[in-house]
């Protein structure tokens, strides 16, 4: 009897020991780790990258973007036509698509999604991405007509972004503010099961899913049964959790930890084919010391961005010499980018030319004032290191930088003010045109056009690029605008950061997707090793 109890308790303990790790790693489960959570999972109400990561798995867009981030591919729409005047887009929808609750997907959902988003009373975000919309109508159950008031060359590219994910409008009406919080009914390869804010989001396989985009290896259904998105707020803890197997995959691993993970034989470092995120220093040209272009060029030439890429990003970034990547659509290779290299000697002579004379202690003075600039930035580890590196570089040419780093909760408010000379940031983008629309239009002052770049010619060219009907006309306009803003030296580009996905031994290697900084994309290609 005692022996039996002994055996039983022994096997119980054994079962517990086996079950303990299994509790986090169920057979058909993939655990993705990230640092921060979203405010809600409503594609038309959130700007958070954390929302995009999950929404791409549970919902879909009419058109998708191939791995090169340049070629538009079919999504929920199997084909489309654009009228010669560039004003009317007609989308022909797939007929085999259904939502997670088995309701068929029709043109009604597309019209409902767009109407809700563009309703002036609806607190929707990023509405500009939709262009100047005249109307979105269902011609029949599987045909949607998207009419614009003026041509918008970026429309199809923007439509690949998560803000265009088609929702179930009936559910949105029923749930109101709880939509995307309590539930989300989408057409993606996974279904939204539960969300515990700042802890985890659980997705389960959409069993009926068969309509994955052609550029994914798997067209459906998904190969893993469940995806758990866990929040690990501390970068170092997150890196450690990947090594201990608590998590299977993450793309929030800090650069300094990548070198260490790379040496672990079981860890895989995967990189998307393309992906655009550029770190830069913006210069507020209306500040007294920065009105002189020569001073701005000197600041730009003094900062060694290659050292930042090598040292702070451990090589997981390339030194940037333009405001956006050379691989981005509509990048103009003819632009003069001499002002964005590293040449401290030339920087010094430019300051001399501009009347800033070096004193015995190295500081630069003009009319009795030292060249001292205020710099705003973020408190996160790698951004702090970059700020210090820039500060150190500028000190070498005699420029004092007063660095003020703020927590993400207050920094955005601070960046709306006119109280700083330089600021540091990174931003994701799809194309040169998108970057210009965001940062360099005079109508976007004081933010995100924090440089106060108000140039009618730039405005006119960006507008022409947006209205262009042919790719050539679009390129011509954006290329010229690009040359103007680069010539003015409004930013010092630092690095183009590589998106790196770290996957543990439980996952088979897969090809990450660079869209919107959400490299797991719809999760179709995730597969367990055994």
């Amino acid at each position, binding site marked *: 009897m005692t022996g039996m109890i002994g055996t039983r308790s022994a096997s119980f303990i054994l079962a517990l020991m086996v079950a303990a790790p299994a509790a986090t790693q169920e057979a058909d489960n993939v655990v993705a780790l990230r640092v921060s959570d979203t405010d809600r999972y409503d594609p038309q109400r959130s700007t958070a990258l954390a929302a995009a990561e999950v929404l791409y798995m549970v919902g879909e867009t009419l058109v998708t973007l191939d791995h090169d981030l340049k070629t538009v591919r079919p999504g929920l729409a199997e084909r489309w036509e654009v009228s010669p005047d560039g004003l009317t887009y007609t989308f022909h929808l797939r007929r085999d698509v259904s939502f997670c609750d088995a309701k068929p997907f029709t043109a009604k959902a597309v019209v409902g999604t767009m109407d809700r988003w563009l309703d002036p009373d609806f607190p929707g975000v990023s509405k500009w991405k939709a262009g100047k919309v005249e109307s979105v109508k269902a011609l029949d159950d599987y045909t949607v007509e998207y009419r614009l008031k003026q041509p918008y060359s970026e429309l199809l590219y923007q439509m690949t972004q998560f803000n265009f994910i088609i929702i179930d409008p009936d559910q949105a009406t029923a749930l109101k503010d709880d939509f995307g919080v309590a539930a989300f009914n989408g057409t993606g390869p996974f279904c939204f099961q539960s969300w515990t804010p700042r802890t985890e989001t659980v997705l389960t396989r959409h069993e009926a899913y068969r309509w994955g985009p052609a550029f994914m290896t798997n067209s459906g259904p998904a190969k893993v049964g469940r995806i758990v998105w866990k929040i690990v707020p501390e*970068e*170092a803890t997150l890196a450690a959790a990947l090594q201990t197997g608590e998590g299977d995959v993450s793309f929030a691993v*800090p650069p*300094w*930890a990548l*070198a*260490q993970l790379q040496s672990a034989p079981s860890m895989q470092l995967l990189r998307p084919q393309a992906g655009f995120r550029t770190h830069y220093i913006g210069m507020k040209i209306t500040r007294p010391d920065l009105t002189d272009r020569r001073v701005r060029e000197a600041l730009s030439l003094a900062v*060694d961005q290659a*050292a*930042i890429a*090598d*040292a*702070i990003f451990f090589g997981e970034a390339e030194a940037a010499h333009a405001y956006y990547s050379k691989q981005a659509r509509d990048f103009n290779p003819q632009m003069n980018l001499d002002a964005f290299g590293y040449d401290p000697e030339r920087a010094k002579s430019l300051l001399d030319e501009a009347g800033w004379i070096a004193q015995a202690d190295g500081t630069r003075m003009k009319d009795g004032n030292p060249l001292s600039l205020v710099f705003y930035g973020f*408190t996160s*580890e790698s951004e*702090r*290191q970059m*700020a*210090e*590196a820039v*500060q*150190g*570089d500028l*000190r*070498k040419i005699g420029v004092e930088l*007063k*660095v*003020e*780093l703020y927590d993400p909760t207050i920094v955005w408010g601070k960046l709306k003010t006119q109280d700083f000379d330089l600021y540091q940031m990174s931003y994701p983008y799809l194309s040169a045109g998108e970057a210009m629309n965001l940062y360099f239009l005079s109508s976007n002052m004081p933010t995100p056009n924090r440089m106060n770049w108000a140039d009618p010619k730039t405005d006119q060219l960006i507008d022409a690029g947006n209205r262009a009907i042919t790719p050539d006309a679009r390129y011509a306009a954006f290329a010229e605008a690009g040359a103007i803003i680069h010539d003015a030296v409004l930013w010092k580009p630092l690095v183009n950061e590589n998106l790196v996905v770290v996957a543990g031994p439980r996952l088979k290697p897969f090809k990450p997707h660079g869209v919107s900084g959400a490299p797991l994309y719809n999760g179709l290609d995730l597969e367990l090793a055994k």
Partner: protein
Amino acid sequence: MNTKASVPHPTKSAGSARSGLFRRLARDPVALVALLFLIVIVAAAVLAPLLAPFDPYDTNLRMRLRPPGGDHLLGTDTQGRDLLTRLLFGARTTLALGFASIMVGSLIGTSIGLAAAFYRRLEGPLMRLVDIMLSFPSILFGLALAAMLGVGMESLVIALGLSTAPPIARVARATATTVMQTEYMDGGRVIGLSDATLIRRYLLRNCAAPIVVYCSLQFGETILLAAALGFLGLGLQPPIAELGSIAAEGRSFIFLAPHVSTAASLLIFTIVLSCNLLGDAFRDLTDPRLLP
């Protein structure tokens, strides 16, 4: 040391007691070592601009995180700056912060404590205020204040001073209450001395010794708090060297380059330990009744 007996010249007696204290301190080897160590650190911190082998702000990313040895005795930090230089300047900042904060804290704390003991009507409200301040952990209190006041040396000193003030106020009140019961206080009142004179000439001077001893104990605590705020990023802005923030910047690279965090943490540890040992010795050597 007996302040109660020396009615006419209480301060003179306290002074001779202090010199005796230093003589007795010299016989305590642990305290002596702590004292010598602190003297060396303070001297090194004060003379940092003369002693430091490199410029503390001269960055060189391509030389970052070099291990100890060669030109850089203790290696380099995350920006390629000489770590020894950074530590010297860091100790300078941290010690100055600790000293300024303990001065602010003792000024506020002593004022509250003496006022509470002298004016009995104020005792209730003042000491309840101190109780409220004490009910927050000092790190939380310091964090909240530093976040409220914003970045910079002044606001950091105020935040640290305010978080060290409450326990000092308690000690000050306790000693002052004892002194208030002495005859010379009554005598002073009878001959018509003003409140200000009574507090300054008799109350403060007779409470000074235990408060100073207590502050020396708190000094280590304050340095630790200053370093903790620096570690959490609420301290001073870059490129100022501060021991807590040096430890924090090295934390991410603890596997790649353990020397940065280790050296800074060890320095904080030894400074705080020496302060505490010395404070303990002071306490033991003064009248044990002064601190319950």
